[in-house]
């Protein structure tokens, strides 16, 4: 899609995005269009908590904490293409009813008789308390609301990376309005609602599974089997803020892609490691362990008479 900038008339490309900044006059433009099933209108959006300088502070802190193992060139890396993007996502909630069955572990103690051989070879019978476990079957239903499940609807950011960026504080949600995203890039929805619904159900099932494990009685469990049935599902298009950038740390290496949660400042990226730093750390750790072992051996050795 191409439109003219409403300020200076320059041609603007809106491929995969719904809002952009004019490269000539920096005016923020937003595409107004009817909603469709492929490109729904967002219902809610979380706002950016800070500007580009705020994101740089989080990035510098993140790099600083990783310098002990990172390539030294990362310290002087050039930040390229730092962009504030409203990422498309779907917000899922439902009523979950889960049938479960499990073997519940119940501990009990028994007095056990055993034979002990002394240093002089004499055999003695003694008793001791041992903890044993009895497994009892249990089945039932767990129920509750599954709320606040968000999945990425951007083909450019996979679900795992998005999961590492979470959580977003959904108490700060606002009703979507074009003015909220003006000045930032609003990415279009590039993953379908059906795919996001499947991913949401998987996330919901994981959340219910965690809850179910806490819900079970006893001292432990085994053979947990459960089947979740969801009702009253809702899947709403939302926008969440991220800062995306590329760190070019060496001219002969590909840049590192870093994504920053625009609300909490959580940073996700893969740090290029320095092998000689790792080697030195490993050698240092081995030296410390060896020193402790030697010290223990020295202290256990009987003093010379």
């Amino acid at each position, binding site marked *: 899609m191409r*439109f*003219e*900038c*409403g*300020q200076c008339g320059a041609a603007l490309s809106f491929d995969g995005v719904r809002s952009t900044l004019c490269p000539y006059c920096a*005016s*923020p*433009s*937003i*595409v*107004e*269009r*009817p909603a469709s099933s492929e490109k729904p209108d967002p*219902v*809610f959006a979380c*706002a*950016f*908590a*800070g*500007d580009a300088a*705020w994101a740089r502070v989080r990035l510098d802190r993140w790099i600083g904490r990783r310098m002990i193992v990172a390539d030294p060139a990362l310290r002087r890396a050039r930040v390229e293409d730092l962009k504030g993007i409203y990422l498309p996502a779907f*917000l899922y*909630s439902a*009523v979950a009813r889960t049938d479960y069955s499990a073997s519940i572990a*119940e*501990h*009990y103690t028994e007095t056990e008789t055993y034979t002990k051989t002394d240093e002089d070879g004499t055999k003695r019978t003694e008793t001791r308390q041992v903890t*044993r476990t*009895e497994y009892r079957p*249990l*089945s*039932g*239903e767990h*129920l*509750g*609301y599954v*709320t*606040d499940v968000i999945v990425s609807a951007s083909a450019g950011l996979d679900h795992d990376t998005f999961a590492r960026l979470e959580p977003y504080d959904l*108490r*700060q*949600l*606002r*009703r979507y*309005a*074009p*003015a*909220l*995203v*003006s*000045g*930032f890039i609003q990415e279009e929805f590039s993953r379908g609602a059906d795919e996001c619904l499947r991913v949401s159900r998987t996330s919901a099932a994981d959340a219910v599974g965690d*809850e179910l494990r*806490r*819900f*079970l*009685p*006893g001292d432990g469990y085994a053979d947990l089997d459960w089947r979740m049935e969801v009702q*009253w599902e*809702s899947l*709403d298009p939302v926008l969440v803020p991220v800062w995306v950038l590329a760190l070019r740390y060496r001219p002969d290496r590909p840049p590192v892609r870093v994504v920053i949660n625009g609300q909490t400042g959580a940073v996700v990226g893969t740090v290029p490691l320095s092998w000689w730093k790792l080697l030195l750390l490993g050698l240092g750790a081995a030296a410390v362990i060896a020193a402790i072992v030697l010290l223990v051996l020295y202290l256990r050795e009987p003093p010379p008479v």
Partner: protein
Amino acid sequence: MSAGATCIRCRGALEEGDLRCAVCALPVPAPPASAERHTRAQVLRCTDCNAAIAFSPAHQAPRCAFCGATMAIEQLVDPLEVATERLPFGVDRDAAVASLRGWLRRRGWFAPKALHDEAVLESFTPISWAAWVVNAQATVAWTADSDEGAKRSAWAPHAGQLPMRFDSLIIPASRGLSLEECRLLVPYYDLRRKEPVPADGDEVVESFDAQRSAARQHVQRAIEASARNRVEPHVPGRRRRNVHVACLLQGQTTSRIALPAWVLAYRYRGAPYRAIVHGQRPEVVFGRSPLDWTKVALVALAVVAVVTAIVIAFLAA
């Protein structure tokens, strides 16, 4: 949103400013769009000076960089909770002081003999402390261990499900009173006498301990704690442990109320103490009071002497 609107999923009451249901998180439908839209690119302009506007993270609002004007965006109204109803005081200051005096007299043998006569009342503060009043229906799934059906272990697992109603469940949100103090006061309030908080009243009504967005977790935890207590009699057997509940709430309504109590501070031989008198039932009094450590030491010595005598007698035998 119209007054009295309810969530279509859980039938919980929605409040002005809610973007999502506080119980089940279902989004509140947006108001219908005003006009048909055509595909076009537009620059949002400031209504004051017509310059382009962009969202400013520093101001958390769309802002004109030229004239500094900001625009409002609909967001969750998240005020500090405020009571809209109250229970009137049924105990006046004189009755509260009399209750405290009576309570000091009944402090028991370990209290100083002169406590009633020498305690100096220092302050009498009427407080209207904050609480949520919740009504809801719920289906409660539960699991627990009990001695019913136990074999080698003393415990056997059980599970079940119960329908439950929570009528006028009072959930403390007080800043000034501790949770334990609130718990002791709650059973004696008569909510039938509640009335709206007068707009021009001079009575000090305590503000809530949480904002609306955080209230959901408070209320949910309190409902689960209440459900856990009510489930226990339904667990078969005489002994039970590991009682867990999962609640599916329906039709929840939450109101905010101020409940009356007197906080009385008194001093005995230089040390300060605090007592609470119920604002509706003067016989409900509790608090801290001094101990006569000479009596405590004498009793401890007597116990030690008796135990020593029994041990000596046992050894001699």
